[in-house]
């Protein structure tokens, strides 16, 4: 058997293996089919979202297991400026659920703005705490920002996947993650700094050598109930701080290298701001212990008022449905290594 035929044999064996395995195993990743998303116009009061499921994945999990779910969506070609939400809804055994959503307005296809092509990630840790199957569905949520006309935009690519099925937990057996509480947490001239999202003190197993820390913030331009000039923008600086501590309570090590400053126009309205510290190495210097905290320092620099969005409440399960759910928005988490 020569090398070429060995390769062909291996491919055929793989295909046969997949054909056998597929019916017995739920998909743990799925690529979204490109499609046109229809979104309704603004009603006279309130807001109505269309909710379009675009992919589902499942994973059989143990009681102690933590998995990492990631949804990426790219949209463009909007007929009218519209809200685009990338939402993931996860359900598990015993009624467990965890949901998350990021959102941003996608500008119309003739606007000439970079905001007419938007990519959003929604990503978090899932840990039902009891054994069973976790199923996660990705939804495109949205609405036209016109009071008179429905709109469409195009989901051009994306995926939903379990990017890791064996995330290391903290010593308390829980995953390290935290979401910002409901409401918009304002920043303005009088109160220019908030530290959100934030991970309170946590301890990792001594075998951990480093941390990948992610802080995903959702910035809202113009805090509710504040004066706002819709022709202007807000300027905000985001810095992800990661700290390691000593046994005597003093600082062992800190990092603030992940940072970005955003200048966001009112009409973008919601701006997804991801920060990622991929390689915070655990220090073994004298006195240092594997105890950490982390947060995103959000500094209002000028312009219109702004805020960090917390968990969204009362989201309809489908368009116009009576049943609703909550989805976390700004949040942070850790992938130890």
């Amino acid at each position, binding site marked *: 058997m020569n090398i070429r035929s060995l390769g062909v044999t*291996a*491919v055929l*064996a793989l295909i046969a293996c997949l054909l056998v395995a597929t019916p017995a195993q739920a998909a743990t990743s799925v*690529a979204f089919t490109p499609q046109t998303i229809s979104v309704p116009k603004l009603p006279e009061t309130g807001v109505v979202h269309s909710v379009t499921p675009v992919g589902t994945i499942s994973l059989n999990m143990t009681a102690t297991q933590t998995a990492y779910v990631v949804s990426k969506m790219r949209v463009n070609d909007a007929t009218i400026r519209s809200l685009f939400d990338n939402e993931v809804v996860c359900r598990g055994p015993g009624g467990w659920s965890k949901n998350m959503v990021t959102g941003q307005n996608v500008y119309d296809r003739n606007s000439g703005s970079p905001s007419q092509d938007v990519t959003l*990630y929604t990503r978090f840790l899932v840990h039902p705490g009891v054994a069973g199957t976790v199923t996660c569905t990705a939804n495109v949520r949205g609405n036209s920002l016109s009071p008179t006309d429905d709109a469409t935009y195009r989901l051009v690519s994306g995926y939903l996947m*379990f990017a890791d099925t064996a995330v290391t937990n903290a010593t308390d057996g829980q995953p390290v993650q935290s979401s910002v509480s409901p409401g918009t947490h304002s920043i303005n001239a009088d109160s220019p700094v908030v530290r959100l999202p934030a991970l309170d003190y946590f301890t990792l197993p001594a075998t951990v050598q480093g941390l990948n820390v992610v802080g995903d913030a959702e910035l809202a331009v113009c805090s509710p109930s504040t004066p706002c000039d819709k022709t202007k923008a807000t300027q905000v600086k985001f810095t992800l701080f990661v700290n390691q501590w000593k046994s005597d309570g003093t600082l062992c090590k800190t990092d603030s290298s992940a940072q970005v400053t955003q200048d966001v126009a009112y009409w973008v309205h919601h701006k997804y701001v991801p920060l990622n510290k*991929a390689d915070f190495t655990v220090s073994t210097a004298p006195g240092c212990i594997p105890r950490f905290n982390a947060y995103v320092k959000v500094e209002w620099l000028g312009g219109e008022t702004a805020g960090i969005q917390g968990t969204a409440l009362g989201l309809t399960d489908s368009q116009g449905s009576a049943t609703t759910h909550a989805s976390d928005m700004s949040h942070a988490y850790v992938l130890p*290594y």
Partner: protein
Amino acid sequence: MRKLHTRPTKRRRVKAAVVLAAAIPGTLISAAPSAVAAYPTTPFELHTDTSQMKGTLAWYQRTIGVDYTLKTSSCVRVFMTGYTADGATEGPNATSTSCHVAISGNAAIGVPGTPASIRICLSDVTLTVCGEFKRP
């Protein structure tokens, strides 16, 4: 933390499973072990949005050999951890951060016993993707 070895890219004739590389980051491919190796081997593949790693795992007595190619259009670190069947490990081995490269390399991942699995993670500027590969 030990550094992994790299060497200039070398084309290989064996293309098993490479043609099935999927568009979804993190999609893992495992296949039947090679019939010609003294120790069992398995191909592997893992990718984020901007980085791709693929190669062959060789399952020795106390070590997992990793022969790989790594391509990235951003910056990426690779972490590899070998485990015995009962979860014993010597901890992760990590590459230094590689930016905008196409390289090949090899690594020997030590395991305190008979290797049963290896966990490989790619961590780049936007995403970390990990896969667990088991001894055939």
